[in-house]
């Protein structure tokens, strides 16, 4: 096993409120890592810290380190646009751009300077295929993305993230707006994608975490601070024999 991302004593404050508390975790390459915990525990803040999405929020203060392939992503030398190309993100609500299916998938590569039509065609097909959507949209690539169903839109968003050839994909509750069938498709897709990518997923659905992830991290909040990493380990252990009483109480549904 190799580390893809490592955080060392990562703390984060929104103004006075501490949202992450000295989180140290090693996220393994080509594995699915699920972040679980009650609302407000800091899972989303944590995942957003992994590609510096929190930079956009005013009043955020960070200490500690986030290493991507052993390189600190908060170092001055880091190009944030390049970082977000390497570490892509898929959000809770499918958010395709109001343009065609093709243009959604081609959006990232175009931003990164690819203009050649043949090359773009190839990237679009490859990424839409990788997102398990190709069969459903190949005959209507020029139709508006917003005409797709919610589940298809979410897979298009995954295709859009894949088009720039990221190394890590962060997913923030990618299925919570989807119906069970669409959810199953995304979950199957996640299993396919982990062969090529490292995936970190935030989910409120514990069963989903148990189904899709290899490793699971349980976060909690305490009285005056959030983002406390309680336990991190193989998913099979977290869901059958957790070490910490608080994890046990959470996964058995006795609090949270």
């Amino acid at each position: 096993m190799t580390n893809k991302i490592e955080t060392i004593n990562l703390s984060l404050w929104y103004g006075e409120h501490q949202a992450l508390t000295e989180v140290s975790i090693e996220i393994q390459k080509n594995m699915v890592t699920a972040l679980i915990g009650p609302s407000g525990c800091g899972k989303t803040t944590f995942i957003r810290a992994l590609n510096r999405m929190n930079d956009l929020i005013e009043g955020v203060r960070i200490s500690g380190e986030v290493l991507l392939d052993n390189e600190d992503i908060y170092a001055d030398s880091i190009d944030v646009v390049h970082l977000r190309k390497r570490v892509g993100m898929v959000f809770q609500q499918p958010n395709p751009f109001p343009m065609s299916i093709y243009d959604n998938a081609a959006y990232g590569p175009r931003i990164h300077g690819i203009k050649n039509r043949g090359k773009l065609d190839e990237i679009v097909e490859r990424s839409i295929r990788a997102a398990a959507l190709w069969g459903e949209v190949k005959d209507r690539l020029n139709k508006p993305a917003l005409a797709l169903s919610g589940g298809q839109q979410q897979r298009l968003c995954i295709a859009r993230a894949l088009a720039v050839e990221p190394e890590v994909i962060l997913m923030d509750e990618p299925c919570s707006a989807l119906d069970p069938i669409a959810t199953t498709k995304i979950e199957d897709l996640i299993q396919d994608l982990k062969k090529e990518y490292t995936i970190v997923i935030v989910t409120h659905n514990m069963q989903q975490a148990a189904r899709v992830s290899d490793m699971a991290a349980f976060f909690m909040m305490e009285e005056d601070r959030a983002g406390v990493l309680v336990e991190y380990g193989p998913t099979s252990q977290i869901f059958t024999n957790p070490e910490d009483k608080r994890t046990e109480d959470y996964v058995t549904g006795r609090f949270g």
Partner: protein
Amino acid sequence: MAIRITYNKRLREIQDEVLLMGSMVEKAIARSIDALKRRDLKLAEQVVEDDQKINQKRFAIEESCITLIATQQPMAGDLRIIITVLNLITELERMGDYAEGIARITLMIGDEPPLKPLIDIPRMDEKARDMLRRSLEAFINRDSDEAIRITAEDDEVDNLYDQVFRELLIFMMEDPRTITRATRLIWVAHNLERIADRVTNICERVVFTVTGKMEEIGASKY
């Protein structure tokens, strides 16, 4: 804060049912030996008949477990309890079959004259039932230390079995006409030995419930 009230209630009910099934099995074993000692064929028939109730209880508990898994998704410690219950009821059902087997042997013996007074077989019965009762208590109390202690006691039952076997062997060597009757008693002792052995399986599951570790504790001689 009370949370998952219905779920907790179901989980407790299932464990209560296991205790109930355990006492049904214990009673079946005690009655089967009692019937053998007293040549009470009516009681032996009752044991055979009652085994159906044990089998039904097992299926009822299994169904409750399946429903709980399907509807409530037990996790972690709760999941281990449910998995343990599924194993326990299989062991208990089988012990019930052994009791039934002993009762059938009594029916087979019918009114043949006794070979010898029964001494070690009732001892095996008492020991095995004591182990059974305590193993289920250990499950309810989540007492893995007690479970490990009970497992060690299986040797006593094994030794009694050896004794019964040797003694009956001598009978058979001295007088081959006793072979049929002696063999039947060996079957009885063997069934009791198996019952105690299955108690050790229950004990292993108690350890699993508490620690999450699956391991064989002290393999039996037989």
